């Protein structure tokens, strides 16, 4: 009883700590990748988007969490010398249009309306789940757009345009609907920075390839295919990411600083005033990959609940965790991977093995010495009690 009480107290205190720092935890990653222009001579925009698609997939965002919108099909264009292949480099080493490309919106489906529907989640009933952005308040979303733009607009197809206030509206709606925790908007068009001018929602980070009045240029021409195959901004973005893998800790600021205006022939623009965290502390994989601070919970069931219920439920959950006896049944499944560093709420362990495991995990996480000492004392106390009882 005493043991339970003690552990319960600790659990409570930890829960307090986490809820006060940030209301929600980063739970998943989504990416919306949009190529907005059609026609053969805009080959590079499709190649840009597909390159980024490949990168975020490689860094761990699964296909079902990537919405890929391609306004035209260059791979099957009759002018393509390499049928069903798309390259982003003249060396043709990497076919971006391999077997595992899932295009969610293609051709004339890529419209401003559909784009806004994807962002805001206001779909018609018939739209399948695979075409929806099913993010939640713990999601980090990467929104990448490329095409032809101008002062406060981005051209879609050849007929319509997305204006900066449309985008800001959609983001605001997303925020209201708690569809994201953090959003990184990355735009590679001419005068890309103007597209961000209307954004007001907190948690939004934006980076554009060029300032107002500047053009974004293509990187190089593939004389074999006969078109430019990649834009400069995207090319150097990819150059940055090619060096990384899923476990790298490169920060967003190092990414942002990697752009050289001379190579870009334009000035990359960041808008950070809406973003709370320090860029030096945010790994790029927070957006481009699917690496997040994992919250180790004892029970899968519980953690599912936490996702579903949402905000400010952590305290309540920990309370339940003490009293609830049903969840102990599932307990055994969860005690294998204890990599997390925040998981101090392994409480109410009554079997010795469980306890030992939790102690081990605490030994590995040496950041909280007080807790460690506390646990050690508790352990010794229990040993003492047991030994005295046995010696009786």
């Amino acid at each position, binding site marked *: 009883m005493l043991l339970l009480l003690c552990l319960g107290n600790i659990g409570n205190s930890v829960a307090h700590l986490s809820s006060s720092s940030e209301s929600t935890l980063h739970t998943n990653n989504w990416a919306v990748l949009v190529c907005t222009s059609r*026609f*053969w*001579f805009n080959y590079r925009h499709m190649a840009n988007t597909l390159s980024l698609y490949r990168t975020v997939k490689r860094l761990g965002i699964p296909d079902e969490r990537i919405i890929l919108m391609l306004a035209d099909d260059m791979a*099957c*264009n*009759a*002018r*393509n*010398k*390499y*049928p069903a292949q798309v390259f982003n480099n003249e060396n043709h080493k990497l076919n971006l249009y391999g077997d595992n490309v899932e295009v969610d919106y293609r051709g004339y489906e890529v419209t401003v309306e559909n784009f806004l529907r994807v962002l805001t989640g206001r779909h018609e009933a018939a739209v399948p789940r695979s075409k929806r952005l099913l993010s939640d308040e713990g999601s980090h979303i990467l929104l990448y757009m490329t095409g032809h733009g101008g002062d406060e607009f981005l051209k879609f197809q050849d007929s319509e345009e997305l204006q900066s206030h449309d985008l800001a509206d959609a983001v605001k709606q997303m925020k209201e609907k708690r569809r994201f925790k953090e959003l990184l908007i990355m735009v590679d068009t001419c005068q890309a920075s103007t597209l961000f001018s209307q954004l007001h929602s907190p948690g939004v980070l934006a980076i554009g390839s060029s300032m107002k009045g500047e053009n974004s240029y293509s990187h190089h*021409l593939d*004389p*074999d*295919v*006969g*078109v*430019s195959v990649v834009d400069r901004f995207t090319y150097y973005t990819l150059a940055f990411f090619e060096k990384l893998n899923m476990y790298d800790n490169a920060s967003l600021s190092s990414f942002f600083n990697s752009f050289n205006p001379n190579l870009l022939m334009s000035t990359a623009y960041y808008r950070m005033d809406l973003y709370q965290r320090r860029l030096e502390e945010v790994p790029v994989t927070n957006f481009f990959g699917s690496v997040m601070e994992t919250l180790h919970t004892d029970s899968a069931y519980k953690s599912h609940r936490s996702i579903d219920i949402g905000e400010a439920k952590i305290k309540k959950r920990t309370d339940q965790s003490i009293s609830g006896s049903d969840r102990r049944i599932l307990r055994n499944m969860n005690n294998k991977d204890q990599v997390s560093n925040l998981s101090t709420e392994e409480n109410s362990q009554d079997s010795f093995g469980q306890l030992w495991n939790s102690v081990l995990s605490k030994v590995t996480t040496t950041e909280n010495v007080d807790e460690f000492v506390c646990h050690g004392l508790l352990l010794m106390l229990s040993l003492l009690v047991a030994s005295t009882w046995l010696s009786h």
Partner: protein
Amino acid sequence: MAEIAEPKLKQRPIVRLGIFLISHSLFVSIVCFTAGVLALLLLPVLAKNTYISENALMPGSANNMLSSHDTSVANKLVKDLTDLKLRSRGSEFDSQKLIAQYMFDLGAEVTHHKFYPQSNQFHPLHFFTSPDSGNIGKNISCSSLGINTVGIIRAPRGDGKEAIVLVTPYNSMKVGVEEAFSLGIAYSVFSLLTRATWLAKDIIWLVADSQYGEYSAVAAWLTEYQAPTFSRAHIVNSETCRESNIVYKHGQKPNAEEKLYDGFRRAGTMAAALVIKVAKQSDYFEDTVNIYAEASNGQMPNLDLINIVNYLAVHKQGLQIKVSKMWSLLNYRWLYTLGVVFESLGQIARSLNPQWKFGIPATEYVEGTATLASSLYYQGLGVPTGPHGAFRDYQVDAITLEISSKVPLTKMARRNEFLIRGGKLIEGVVRSVNNLLEKFHQSFFLYLLTSPSKFVSVGVYMISFALLVAPLPIVAAYLHVEASDFGSIQPKEKSASQASSASKMNVNFDSWKWLKSARKVFAFHLWGGVVSVLPYFISQMPNLTAKTSFIVWILLSVFSLLVSYMISGPSFSEAAASQSQKKEWASLKSVTISAAFIGLSLTSVINFATAEIGALLIVPICLMARPLKLDIKASNLISLMRITSNLVLGFIGFPPATYFLLKGVFEGYSGINVGDFWEWLESLWAWNSATYLYIGLVHLPCWALCIHILFHHC
């Protein structure tokens, strides 16, 4: 003027401006006309550099793929064709068979298209109509059958809705080295394109049988392609022409014989057409490409097509590009001096403000003027400058490329290099057009070239024409007011309040007096129509030389003029009688000028260059015309000058005189023949040129009316 200005309520500014202009019509017309001529001379300075306007074209972005393999097979074709000529024992269709076999071996779809050459027969009702509606079936013998050979490559992954056409005119009767080489260039490209995986448009290679003219062969094929007439195909394939049908005897080419489809094959709508010719050795020290672009009635292909050819030839293949020039203009001192003046003006402007980019070197100015003059002339003529003109009738952008080598083509070593250069140029253009998503529409259709890479767009060259014709309505209005005033001179002297109702009646009557003049002007224009129809009847008469036809035509014209004088005779005598109608000539001139203005404006819509040249010739005489009698009476210096200038302008304005004068100036007076004008006009109506209509219906009547005014008895 008093009557107009008098009404109590204040007139609107635009009305007052109009009145101001009309009352100062002499000054305005001098200023406008001089400004118009000056603007025309300034055009070479105002020319802009061409640029590729359509993003989709991307010329030169892809590497050339034409290999030595392609040229070696092409070389073999050239050799076979020239050998065929040397042997000359085969039938006349041997070369067609040979070309078809070569095409077939590449895997293309091959057909022969048989046609009867269309003689360009003038028919007054056939202006602006399809040339095909003429008489077919008359006087057609099997011997006059032309055979086009057509090869089609289908784009492997294309939708088959669009096509690019390559045309090589080719006379099977006498194959020159040049023609064989043009086939060689086209063949090397064709050979490459059969292997290309990037084709989005089908490729049609038309070997046009040019023994009855390059144009008619291409036109016949195009007519069949775009507007097939089913009865005609039947005639061609009938038994009567058996001997001229291509029969592959003895099973010598079993493949071709079996697979050759004898119907007409089509691909999609044509995106562009290139006519490839090889000219004799060039006068320059480089391989050159001559571009011919003018189609009928001054229509031009989209400027982008010329731009891509120019870009690829200059920047990729190192060929020199030429467009036609008026060579004789290059030697004019005054033009050079003008160039120097413009150059120094430009320098002054630049010293005042470095931002002002104005002025070009004098030599460049002279070159630009020579090119501009030629551009204006060929557009104004309204006769296509090559087989590409046939495509324009179906709204297909087409140009003729005439490639010439710097060394004789008989030299073996140069052959391959020449073929590869020409082939790469064509390949580049085809690949660029292949990238096109829609019709050419981005760049200009209305332009004048001042060099292969400089152009004057419609917005700029319109100004000079507008300035030239602007005085016409103003002077017409001025003369009309003056003519009306004359009758009401009495009321003018009285004060306005005293103007009686009788004089008002008089004014009302006078204001309708112009109708009489209008009747006369109308009669003259009717006569112009008769004169322009006369050649049709003259040409029906057998055994007439150009000279006699011309003279007959002039005689008939004068006769018809006299007849029309007779018919409208009473009005002339009446005119002389009344004192109040002494200024009848003013009213007549007013209506004449209005008619000239309307005629020129309408012509400018159909063919701008014609209107521009016509305005230069007819506007001065229209403005200056004044009865000689009046000037003789006055007999001071000004009137003397006016008499001489009127006579000179009157002489220049007469179409045959203009023609012979210009011909003399540009080509020298030595070789002038009276029949030349007839032949020139004949070519105009044979090509359905609107210039012919302009001369007959606008220029000639206006000129005759001006002469009538000059010799007016007042």
